[in-house]
């Protein structure tokens, strides 16, 4: 009883700010303006404009997840390999940006990538052709990778660093060279961390609208932007909710896929 009463504040919180809003979204998503049931809001995703945004979102999120994985995996291996004090400092360096506000970090990239921005100026200074990255899908991927990379590194590092050194030694002892040890032993054992990292990068990338607004200059619409506009610009809460439900479906599917591989060890955040 004692323990149950302690969870009360959270239960109230969850009901007020998670469950009830979710029910509202479902209500709005499944009804029209007159309040009668309709699937039209869900079907709205099929319109050319919406489905283009959804597929662009999926594509860019997938790309940034893959880039994060390629960057994070070797780094996590190196970090866990240097077992002595040094790794603590490097990890600190990676976590440091996470303490800074997400908006600030993204805004910093606007300044860096902007036409006549820092990167452009430096390139021009060396007589090279300036780069126009801002307001392109590439800039959005840049932002996603930068913002979400730590969420890929940490779970992988966490799992890899817990692999018993003697398990790796055993593989070497049984004749495996470094590469065979990596793909036959270390990688399979690190899968829970990899899956966890993929979820933690893919889901926020899929739903972001801030990164695309700031780095896409409002010209590139992701599904997050579309939903935001439906709500904020007052077009239709019903369509916005319907699209949210569709997006939620994609998120739930990716969570189910990942939970199949993840046995809980990789959940660090």
């Amino acid at each position, binding site marked *: 009883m004692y323990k149950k009463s302690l969870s009360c504040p959270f239960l109230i919180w969850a009901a007020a700010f998670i469950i009830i809003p979710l029910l509202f979204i479902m209500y709005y998503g499944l009804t029209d303006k007159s309040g009668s049931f309709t699937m039209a809001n869900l079907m709205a995703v099929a319109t050319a404009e919406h489905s283009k945004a959804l597929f662009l979102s999926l594509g860019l999120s997938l790309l940034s997840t893959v880039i994060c994985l390629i960057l994070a995996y070797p780094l996590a291996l190196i970090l866990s390999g240097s077992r002595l004090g040094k790794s603590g400092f490097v990890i600190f360096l990676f976590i440091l940006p996470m303490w800074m506000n997400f908006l600030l970090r993204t805004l910093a990239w606007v300044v860096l990538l902007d036409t006549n921005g820092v990167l452009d100026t430096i390139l021009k200074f060396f007589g090279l052709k300036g780069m126009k990255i801002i307001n392109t899908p590439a800039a959005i991927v840049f932002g996603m990778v930068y913002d979400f990379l730590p969420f890929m590194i940490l779970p992988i590092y966490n799992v890899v660093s817990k692999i*018993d050194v*003697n*398990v790796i*030694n*055993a*593989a*070497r*002892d*049984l*004749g*495996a*060279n470094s590469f*065979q040890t990596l793909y*036959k*032993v270390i990688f*399979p*054992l690190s*899968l829970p961390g990899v899956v966890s990292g993929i979820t933690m990068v893919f889901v926020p990338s899929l739903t972001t609208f801030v990164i695309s607004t700031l780095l896409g200059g409002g010209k590139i619409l992701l599904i997050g932007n579309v939903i935001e506009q439906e709500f904020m610009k007052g077009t239709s809460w019903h369509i916005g909710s319907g699209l949210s439900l569709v997006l939620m479906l994609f998120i739930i599917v990716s969570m189910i896929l990942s939970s199949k591989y993840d046995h809980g060890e990789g959940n660090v955040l």
Partner: protein
Amino acid sequence: MGNKLIELQHISKIYDGHKVLDDLNLYFNENKFLTLLGPSGCGKTTTLRILGGFEMPDEGHVIFSGEDITSLPPNKRQLNTVFQKYALFTHMNIAENIAFGLKISGKSKTYIEDKIKYALKLVNLDGYEKRMPDSLSGGQQQRIAIARAIVNEPKVLLLDEPLGALDLKLRQEMQYELIRMKNELGITFIYVTHDQEEALTMSDTIVVMNQGYIQQIGTPEDIYNEPTNAFVADFIGDSNIFPGIMLEDKVVEIFGVIFPCVDTGFGHNRPVDVVIRPEDVELGAPGAGTVDGVVSHLIFKGVHYEMEVTACGQEWLVQSTRMYPVGEHVSISVDPFNIQIMNKPESEDEEAVVLDV
């Protein structure tokens, strides 16, 4: 005498400025059960890791069948290791674990299947192919670890405290199992442990180590009956170690009492260490022995009673099947053959510090 299979020549290893091994020289013969025995931090595991290739010595050479393998990585060495905490691959089932080394060396499918069957039979775990390591008990996992190592037909099996995590009963069973496996396989076992009983039970040869130095090499009987210094005497079994003076050949004085012994060649009035095993101290009626004393402690140990007798102002550890109650006046006598005389350590290096183990 077998052939020298592996030889360690002048091996030194330093960790963080601390010398773990200092000019170690040791060789291992074919088809022997050899144990490296010592307290934690004595360098026994480091020696094993150097043999396995997981550690490079700072100085010295490892010779295997006449070939220098000092800088060879573990996967190129003809020896396999059984690790302390089993180190099984938890993402593979038992058959895949055992097949790991064979698959890498590119053996045929039928060969691998036969080998898995044979290995599981050897470790008494027939039919476990499809099980996952997590579903096995500690003792079973350790057997699988052994099976996984021996299917590769190594010339030497290195075992790093493999029974350390098992309970007493299982540990004793596994000791006999290991002796049987070694005899069936006909290969060399190099076994690392801090458990003197394990070492005495299984070994052909015991190497007692302390602080990076070899203290004594010998058969279990040699090590127990004729320890070369106070460290070995104290580490192997219980013992009374007293400072004594060798008055002349076959006469030693302990706490002012003269005891006859059988050792010669120590000269006159030479300070020595005297070792008397507790089971060799004989108790009798007061006045009937060499010196009188009073029983101060008594514990029942099952097979025998363990007593402490105060005599000459010293506690004597005594094991006897006959019980003398606390406070009883007794006499102590020791058969001259059971008094072991040892030189006192001469140098700081040789000093075998007695650790709490």
